[in-house]
């Protein structure tokens, strides 16, 4: 009897989905994170740049477009972290036997963080 693979038994991999999020997050993080981190985390606290006042920041974040941009940055970057960190654990620490829990932990963190970010940015 010839070997037959029915379409129903072929399990579709969900790897391309996570990879797409990883890739999109990689681009967003590469473009946006260095300048934002440098300004808010180094240049402003060290006094190299004028600190924007509370009112100015409030006005900026009050704009839904600003919050949407921030949501896209933080959420996609979180999925970028999840995918890359998952494979860092695989390759660096040889946790291949823990495939499922590691993936669950990494993507779970990214999903929870994104949900929290969406909620807190929506209810600004």
């Amino acid at each position, binding site marked *: 009897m010839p070997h037959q693979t029915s379409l129903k038994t072929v399990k579709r991999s969900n790897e391309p989905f996570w990879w797409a999020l990883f890739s999109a997050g990689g681009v967003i993080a590469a473009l946006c994170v260095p300048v934002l981190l440098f300004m808010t985390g180094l240049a402003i606290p*060290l006094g190299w740049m004028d600190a924007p006042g509370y009112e100015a920041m409030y006005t900026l974040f009050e704009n839904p477009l600003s919050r949407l941009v921030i949501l896209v940055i933080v959420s996609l970057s979180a999925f970028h972290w999840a995918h890359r960190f998952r494979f860092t654990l695989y390759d*660096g620490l040889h946790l291949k036997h823990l495939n499922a829990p590691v993936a669950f932990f990494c993507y779970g963190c990214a999903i929870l963080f994104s949900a929290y970010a969406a909620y807190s940015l929506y209810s600004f």
Partner: protein
Amino acid sequence: MSYGRYKKNHPWLYHKKPPLLWWVKKWAYVRFILRELTSLGVAFYVVVLLTYVNAVSQGPEAFAVFSDWLKSPLSLGLHGIAFIFVLFHSITWFNLAPKAMVVHLGKKRIPGRIILIMNYSMWFVVTAGFFWLLTTV
């Protein structure tokens, strides 16, 4: 192929696990692990960024407390390390893009050099844009 009940000298007994620090012996491997670890810098900053927005949302006092924390040596140290990591991420990401992306214009393939230039130009525009935004608010 089944080995049945034969237990002695299984092939997998010969599979040696590489040591945990297999990557420290060669600079190329160290660079690979460092590149993979840049994701921790990215993760650190997105948490900070969301906390920043939440602090503004909570009011002037919370914003002042958070701004003071940003001036602490701990924060400056973490941001300093994270900044090197995210720079490394950006550079390695943009440099790899021409190899990962095959873009066609009509029937011609766009050369990698052009994609590289486009990436770095885009990075420059986004950086200048955010800088302009935060200096004019």
